[in-house]
């Protein structure tokens, strides 16, 4: 068991992969370390959201993911 980090949209290109498994538990500082400085810089922006287990976090810095959780990194959206 581990925490799965999922990269969406342009963050997928930046990460060079769609997802990565890391050891849990994972908090905000652990996430910033795992994803490397470029994506960490993106995560610092308010328009980039983080979801844990299918719920978007109101305060992403309060992230606390356990083994088995999925953490999604959500850059600005564009649909339609």
């Amino acid at each position, binding site marked *: 068991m581990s925490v799965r980090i999922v990269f969406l*949209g*342009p963050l997928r290109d930046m990460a060079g992969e769609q997802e990565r498994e890391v050891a849990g538990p994972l908090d905000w500082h652990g996430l910033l370390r795992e994803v490397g400085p470029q994506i960490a810089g993106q995560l610092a922006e308010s328009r980039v959201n983080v979801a844990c*287990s299918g719920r978007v976090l109101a305060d992403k810095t309060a992230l606390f993911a356990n083994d088995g959780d*999925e953490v999604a990194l959500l850059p600005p*959206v564009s*649909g*339609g």
Partner: protein
Amino acid sequence: MQIAAPADVRLLEKGMSVGEGLAAFSSAHQRAGAVASFLGTVRPDEAVQALELTHYQPLTLPGMSQLADSALRRFGLDGVLVWHRVGVMAPGQPIVLVITASRHRREAFDAVDFLMDHLKSAAWFWKREKRPDGWHWIEPRERDHADLARWN
């Protein structure tokens, strides 16, 4: 074609039968009187060879369903249909179809507008275009954010 009432919300991996959708929706909501729709397609552009939409399974469809429910309540609709493509699309192909049924034209129109503004810049989709020099991610324009702010 079976249409779920009051809300028919779908993520489509390939194709979209827009005519069948309108026909089935309007017969499912014959009591309404007013049916408005919007169909968005990939606009042919010399520089754009394809469009790709990605989504995030745990959020995208639930978010679309919540959006459809809030349109139903806000505009007192009889019914709503929200279909959105994901995957790779060629120029001319459908991306999104929104249909609303209401007793009066104004509410049906406004609800389509509301749904489209939210799908454009407040739904869990990421869009990129293939141009001769490769794939480019598209961010919402300032105008899209302004359109969304109208509903607050």
